[in-house]
């Protein structure tokens, strides 16, 4: 049996957990609560970190795992470990919170440096009234015209499927491109 993985990253509260939950056939392993520095002190002994972990069984021989990155800054060091061997990655951005765009951009750059795999950017929470328009987000995030920026509502399975499919199409296109 073969397993492949994709990583879902982005700033805290962008919608990573929700995204994975929408398509995973197992309950997403854990959700993350914002830990205030006080309670963080209280848990000093057995520090655990929630991780989002979803699964999609393709057939008898193939399983796709979706890994969400932890939002807490102090676990940044896990990114490199998670990015190892991934097929591609998705950067989730909360379209209603422009103050997180800069962080999203820097997360994107970091992941690109870890692995030269294809990626897409999901403009999440497009169902909310004050969500930014895609073209404005493209400028604000300084995304090249070639980078796929896709509308997304993490609670809506169809848009999540679309994001995953667009990433897979990019992966396929890259394989075909490499052939020539």
């Amino acid at each position: 049996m073969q397993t492949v993985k994709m990583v879902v990253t982005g700033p805290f509260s962008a919608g990573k957990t929700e995204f994975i939950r929408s398509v995973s056939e197992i309950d997403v392993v854990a959700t993350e609560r914002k830990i205030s520095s006080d309670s963080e002190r209280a848990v000093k002994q057995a520090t655990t970190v929630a991780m989002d972990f979803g699964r999609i069984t393709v057939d008898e021989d193939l399983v796709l795992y979706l890994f969400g990155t932890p939002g807490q800054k102090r676990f940044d060091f896990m990114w490199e470990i998670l990015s190892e061997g991934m097929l591609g990655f998705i950067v989730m951005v909360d379209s209603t919170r422009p103050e997180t765009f800069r962080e999203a951009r820097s997360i994107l750059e970091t992941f690109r440096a870890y692995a030269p795999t294809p990626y897409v950017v999901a403009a999440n929470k497009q169902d909310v009234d004050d969500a930014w328009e895609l073209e404005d987000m493209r400028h604000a995030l300084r995304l090249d015209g070639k980078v796929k920026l896709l509308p997304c509502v993490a609670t809506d399975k169809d848009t999540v499927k679309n994001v995953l499919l667009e990433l897979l199409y990019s992966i396929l296109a890259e394989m075909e491109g490499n052939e020539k």
Partner: protein
Amino acid sequence: MALRGNLRDFTVTQLLNLINLAHKTGTLVIEAPNEVAKVSFRDGKLSYAQIGQDDGHLASILHKTSRLTTGQLRAIQLRATHVSDKELGLLLINAGHMTQDDILSSLQSYFTDMVRRLFTWIEGSFRFENDMMPPPDRITVRLDLENLIIEGARQLREFEQLQDEIPSLEMALRFTERPGSNLQKMNLSVEEWRVVSYISPKNTIQQIASAAKMGDMEIRRIVYGLIQAGLVEVVRPDGAAPVQERARPAIPVQNREEQKSLVNRLITRIRSI
């Protein structure tokens, strides 16, 4: 007479026992494949310990034991480079930020934890340096070794049990087909997570351990927990591809047609969700 040898022949617990009985003063240096530990004793009592990259400075220790916040630690590291540990301790006490007992108990629990970590080391060489003591500006403690020795002996038994449960590290792991429902409530530690991220039928447990920089005991304990939770199962390794640190092809080695067929299968599956 030089006290030196290999951990395969003489365990850390046995060394502590010897140091305790002989009331030894000096530093036990243990060189394991990935890390070096230096543990100092005075008259057979634990006085100081430092492992690997840890700088062993008071500020770092107070941070690790949650007595200082990360912000406070950073401020100290940036602006108090010329202050010795003893001075810093006094400053913190004088500022009413903590008491002398707070500092000593932080150091004690930190040093004890360091020694506990050594119990999981089963590979490496050791030597006892009679003349080596921690740098003079460091704050040392005086801790009886008896309790640690008892703990070490207990861990040794646990290790033997784990060895029965997971006899070979040459086996690989894979995620189970149907993870138990307890998976939902599972909160993985950072170490467990590290291991999980390397799980593949291509990687032996031994390879995962070295990629995750873990000792035999630590990896066995984590793998045992993951098996108990129904998350993984032990399988025969599939091929002998080593765990590579970096730049591994995104898709495990196959020819391009197979890769494309794999991606196409993923596409078909996701369309059908």
